[in-house]
């Protein structure tokens, strides 16, 4: 007995695919024609006309071939696909704009020099954004050191202790994630900077970033800890462990990769924050390794300052700064993915 050849009768045949492709082509031609003869103008008009015509033609075609239910399904399918397209268009548009404008300002030199001896209007061969990169990394590191313990301990309170205040704390943490960043900045300005330290510093900026970061870390960690099966907690306690030792030895190690993800989402939340840094860091032009004293630059501050300077060189600097910031955030996201995947493997 011979084995039959494996087939996939549910996939569209070559002729069907060609027809579908033909529908797209015809819709495109018709869309161009419609825009030419009617007063519609612009790129959006082409897209819009194409979309309407494509839905009409493909629906009629489907309806004729398979019936009215398939035709209705086709309308919804096209709407969903169009919505998805609209949603991702700005992302690609942003990426394209930033890369094409920023790449002109990228050279090896800008990663080795700061702006202490250059003004934003100087040619691109002088000055750089080393101080902004080190500043952003310092700010993020300080904020991380403060917010990770607080955020994770808050999550542990919500998932492990589940005390009387669980509901109000969960509510407040959720509300805190909606706090505008400028409010966090003004709070540190009026509560810490003016009455106590009386000088701009990186640490003041980190305090404001910490306020913004804690809700992200706490909420993500809470979700991660909730996924740890209760069996493991019971097994730990049944072996004679106290709750604290069970959490420290079993629950947290089991949730480790998720907690790292929470941390990195927290970083992504604050890496581009600008408003509190404008208020609190003083935005120096020199590499400043000390977060507790003296103004400290950062990538968002550098971008803001360069755009404000207005000259063509300064604008190019600003776009280059944006590109570097995006790459930094992107690297953090990739490392988060890698950490999570390595755990699964």
């Amino acid at each position, binding site marked *: 007995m011979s084995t039959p050849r494996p087939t996939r009768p549910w996939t569209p045949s070559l002729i069907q695919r060609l027809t579908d492709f033909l529908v797209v082509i015809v819709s495109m031609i018709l869309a161009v024609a419609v825009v030419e003869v009617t007063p519609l103008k612009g790129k959006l008009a082409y897209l819009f006309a194409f979309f309407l015509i494509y839905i009409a033609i493909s629906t009629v075609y489907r309806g004729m071939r398979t019936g009215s239910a398939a035709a209705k399904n086709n309308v919804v399918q096209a709407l969903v696909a169009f919505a998805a397209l609209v949603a991702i268009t700005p992302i690609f548009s942003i990426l394209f704009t930033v890369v094409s404008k920023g790449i002109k300002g990228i050279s090896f030199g800008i990663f080795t020099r700061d702006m202490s001896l250059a003004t934003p209007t100087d040619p691109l061969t002088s000055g750089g954004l080393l101080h902004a990169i080190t500043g952003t990394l310092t700010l993020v590191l300080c904020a991380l050191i403060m917010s990770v313990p607080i955020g994770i301990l808050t999550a542990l309170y919500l998932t492990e202790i589940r005390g009387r205040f669980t509901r109000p704390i969960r509510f407040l943490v959720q509300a805190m994630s909606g706090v505008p960043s400028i409010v966090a900045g003004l709070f540190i300005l009026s509560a810490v900077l003016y009455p106590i330290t009386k000088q701009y510093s990186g640490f003041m900026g980190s305090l404001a970033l910490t306020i913004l970061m804690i809700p992200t870390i706490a909420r993500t960690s809470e979700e991660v800890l909730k996924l740890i099966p209760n069996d493991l907690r019971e097994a730990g306690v*049944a072996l*004679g462990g106290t709750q604290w*030792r069970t959490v420290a030895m079993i629950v947290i190690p089991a949730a480790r990769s998720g907690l790292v993800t929470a941390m990195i989402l927290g970083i992504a939340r604050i890496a581009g924050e600008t408003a509190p840094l404008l208020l609190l860091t003083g935005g120096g032009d020199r590499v400043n390794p000390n977060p507790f004293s003296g103004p400290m630059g950062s990538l968002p501050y550098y971008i803001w300052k360069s755009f404000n300077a207005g000259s063509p060189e300064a604008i190019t600097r600003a776009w280059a700064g944006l590109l570097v910031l995006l790459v930094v955030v992107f690297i953090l996201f990739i490392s988060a993915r890698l950490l999570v995947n390595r755990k699964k493997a």
Partner: protein
Amino acid sequence: MTLETRGIHAWFGSNHVLSDINLAFADGSVTALIGPSGCGKSTFIRTINRMHEFIPGAAMAGEVLLDGKDVYAPGVDVTKIRLQIGMVFQKPNPFPSMTIGENVLSGLKLSQLKVENKDELLEDCLQRAGLWNEVKDRLDAHGGSLSGGQQQRLCIARALAVKPQVLLMDEPCSALDPGSTLRIEETIRHLSQTMTIIIVTHNMQQAARVSDYTAFFLADGGPGQMIEYAPTTEIFAQPKDQRTENYVTGRFG
């Protein structure tokens, strides 16, 4: 070592799930708890090692006397109780972040006990759980890499490492294939020489195979009650209560 329960009741919120359980467990015996789902068998064994209080809204009444002392008496260190009364759960639950060896010894770390020779204890526990020959060459592998039956025997080895005098088993074989079930039953028979074992099971053949005594629980609309307690041979051959006879002969449940 003696273990006795007196007038155990249990509630979840206002729901009375278990009523007046009085049982004395003979040293070195295996007692099977049988009965339909929802009759309070699992709740009962969880009151013995104080795991019942882990569930929000839980309440209880009565005494659990371990060597004559109530485990619910004020001032009792609950972690010490759970070291003396070990537990194996329905679903195998090895700790995912630990290797096989670390899993077996995890109880020592959790309860901060010191032992002189860890390797000896590790081998001894795995031997007694009937797992040593299968894992002796890969003690550094993760517990999750074992089959379901092996994972459950790993959990038994883990429970043995802190040297409990009583072992509670909550349907330990319900998630396992017949082969693994047989291995675990052999392990139970073997362990009963040195400790008291209480096993909840839905499998009546299993109760007949492994236990010396059997208690039949039933919730007849109200809270779960113990209908009959006797040597296993008697429960299955000549039950005194009509309801027990109906259950063990498979007429209901």
